[in-house]
């Protein structure tokens, strides 16, 4: 490990859950005991953090073209050994990875959506064996986290101290001869943020899969979604930290019900690397710049923390999809043609409340639906259910009869076919004397 300030190669900083909070507690105890005054870091409130994050994201969104140019220029000037490319879509990125793979068929990815959702299908289709070690590591119980409940949670006060930079790398050179030797595989890793100004790339790591891949893969491809580029290093660090702070619980919840047991890259017998190691950096657009032009602009602000999943009532039902299911990723899949409908959202708005950037996902789901309907029309069932007051008026006009009919199985079967209303549901009772009739009589 070396100090990134003096880096001779691309600075790669890894942020991990830290023990700062416990240190703070100890410091407070010291103070209470009247002992030597201990340093207690300034705590930031949840609102302060959200406000600061919003500022960083809006700033990046307003000048993304400039930031991208600045990043590329700085990379080329400072670190010519890093092979930088820009891909307009996932096909271009997958094509690039295929070209540089040099016959290597094993790819290790991290859990970042940019690779696990956007690139993985293309990599699989291109015949790669794609492995995500993250879930496997969750089972292994790594060095720092013995139990996932040890991890800091949002309720804790010192939010700013929950994640810290713990590893600073300069490129992918092996820092120590006793470390494991590079092996013949590719690591395709989605970064959490990068500074256009000084090019420090940030990863958030819960376990050790990213660090291992950076040290062991013969070729490393760091994938930077356009939305991960920010101006300053401290902003990139803060954005990465926020991913940890806001995403922690939802990431854990997401893998809790039925964790998929995967094969870890560590468990594979791969030959040792026989060529000089290479570091590639792919700047990926894949629809991101288009987001900025239209009504889905807010999605560009998303840091991918997956907080939207935390209270989503339907998240448990989608553990078997090929990507990490979150309301945001579901909308993304739909916008890019990977989902056929946008009707699964209950519109409970829990995602909006949890989002550190208050992205109006429910509103955007509606926008996506409006676009879809304008092109494809509505289903017959939704045409009927989309006129609730008309149905209520009809039911009310024939209230006693309508209520009795609703209890007859032979009526409910054709009703199910026509309206799509499940025959097993208990329907509300119509009242011939509506409230407003009553009010007119009594007011």
């Amino acid at each position, binding site marked *: 490990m070396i100090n990134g300030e003096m880096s001779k190669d691309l600075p790669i900083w890894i942020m991990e859950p830290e023990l700062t909070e416990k240190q703070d507690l100890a410091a407070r105890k010291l103070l209470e005991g009247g002992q030597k005054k201990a340093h207690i870091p300034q705590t930031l409130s949840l609102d302060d953090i959200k406000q600061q994050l919003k500022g960083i994201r809006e700033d990046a969104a307003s000048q993304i073209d400039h930031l991208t140019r600045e990043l590329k220029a700085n990379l080329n000037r400072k670190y010519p050994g890093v092979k930088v490319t820009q891909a307009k879509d996932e096909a271009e990125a997958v094509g690039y990875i295929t070209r540089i793979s040099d016959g290597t068929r094993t790819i290790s990815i991290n859990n970042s959506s940019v690779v696990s959702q956007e690139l993985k299908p293309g990599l699989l289709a291109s015949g790669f064996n794609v492995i995500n070690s993250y879930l496997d590591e969750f089972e292994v119980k790594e060095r720092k986290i013995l139990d996932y409940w040890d991890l800091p949670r949002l309720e804790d006060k010192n939010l700013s101290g929950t994640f810290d930079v713990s590893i600073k790398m300069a490129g992918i050179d092996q820092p120590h001869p006793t470390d494991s030797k590079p092996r013949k595989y590719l690591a395709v890793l989605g970064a959490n943020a990068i500074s256009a100004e000084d090019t420090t790339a940030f990863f958030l790591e819960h376990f050790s899969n990213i660090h291992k891949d950076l040290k062991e893969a013969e070729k490393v491809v760091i994938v930077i979604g356009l939305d991960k580029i920010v101006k300053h290093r401290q902003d990139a660090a803060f954005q990465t930290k926020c991913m940890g702070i806001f995403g922690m619980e939802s990431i854990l919840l997401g893998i809790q019900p039925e964790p998929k047991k995967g094969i870890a890259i560590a468990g594979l017998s791969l030959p040792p690397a026989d060529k000089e190691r290479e570091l590639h950096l792919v700047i990926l657009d894949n629809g991101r710049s288009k987001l900025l032009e239209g009504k889905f602009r807010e999605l560009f602000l998303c840091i991918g923390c997956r907080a939207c999943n935390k209270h989503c009532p339907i998240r448990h039902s989608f553990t078997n999809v090929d990507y990490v299911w979150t309301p945001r990723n579901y909308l993304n899949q739909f916008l890019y043609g990977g989902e056929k409908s946008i009707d699964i959202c209950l*519109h409970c708005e829990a995602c909006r409340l949890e989002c550190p950037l208050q992205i109006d996902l429910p509103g955007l789901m509606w926008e996506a639906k409006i676009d*879809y309907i304008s092109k494809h029309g509505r289903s017959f069932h939704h045409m009927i259910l989309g006129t609730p007051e008309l149905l209520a008026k009809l039911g009310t006009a024939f209230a006693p009869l309508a209520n009795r009919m609703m209890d007859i199985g032979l009526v409910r079967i054709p009703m199910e076919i026509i309206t799509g209303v499940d025959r097993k549901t208990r329907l509300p009772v119509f009242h011939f004397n509506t409230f407003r009739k009553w009010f007119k009589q009594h007011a």
Partner: protein
Amino acid sequence: MPDNNLIANKKVAYYAGCFANYYYPEVGQAMVKVLQKNRVEVIVPDQVCCALPMMAKGNTRAAYKNMKYNVKILSEAVASGYALITTCSSCGLMIRRDYPRLLGSEEAKQVSENLYHFSEYLLKLDEIGELDTDFQPIPQTIFYHTPCHLRAQEIDSPTVKLLGLIPDITIRHISEECCGMGGAYGYEKVNYELSKDIAGKLYAEIRENPTDRIVTDCGGCKLQIEAGTGTRVEHPIILIQEAYNL
């Protein structure tokens, strides 16, 4: 900004919504009686469906028509010095949050800013000493279910606070689990199993926390909980009516 004079005016335009009008008229009746008990002038202006279920099923053209109609009527009421209230958390969310966003008009904003959930309004009356708090005791335990659409209004928990004013009442458990109904969502054959699966956590909470009564502000949640537990679920305004012995 909401016009605080509208609270002091003690004049209310009640947006009952479809559920209280067609399916649960006792709620509307209780609301009117409670307001009258507090010497609040109440009108029920002409109104149409808030458009939330229409938007949910993609009937956008009719939805916009309804929204504009309601905004016209309700903004006139505000201009005449009436505060707006609703007993339905879903209508409340739609009018409060989505009307100004979707319509973008000054009238929609005005309606949004001057609409209160009924319990929020009654608490505001209490703040200015205008709520009759001479409630009869209700020595019962309550399981209170917070509807998602009330939670989404980000107005804290006015209903819990209001019920807390009733002597001897014990709010034993407050649940924030989604009931899975989502308007007509849970009725649809394609969502039926998923909807019941979501409700499973709420049903378990109810089983683990037995109380004398289950209370929620949302008609859809009421139906889902009743279907899953076989227990009658009340709207909180019914309890306030009882506490006034009306």
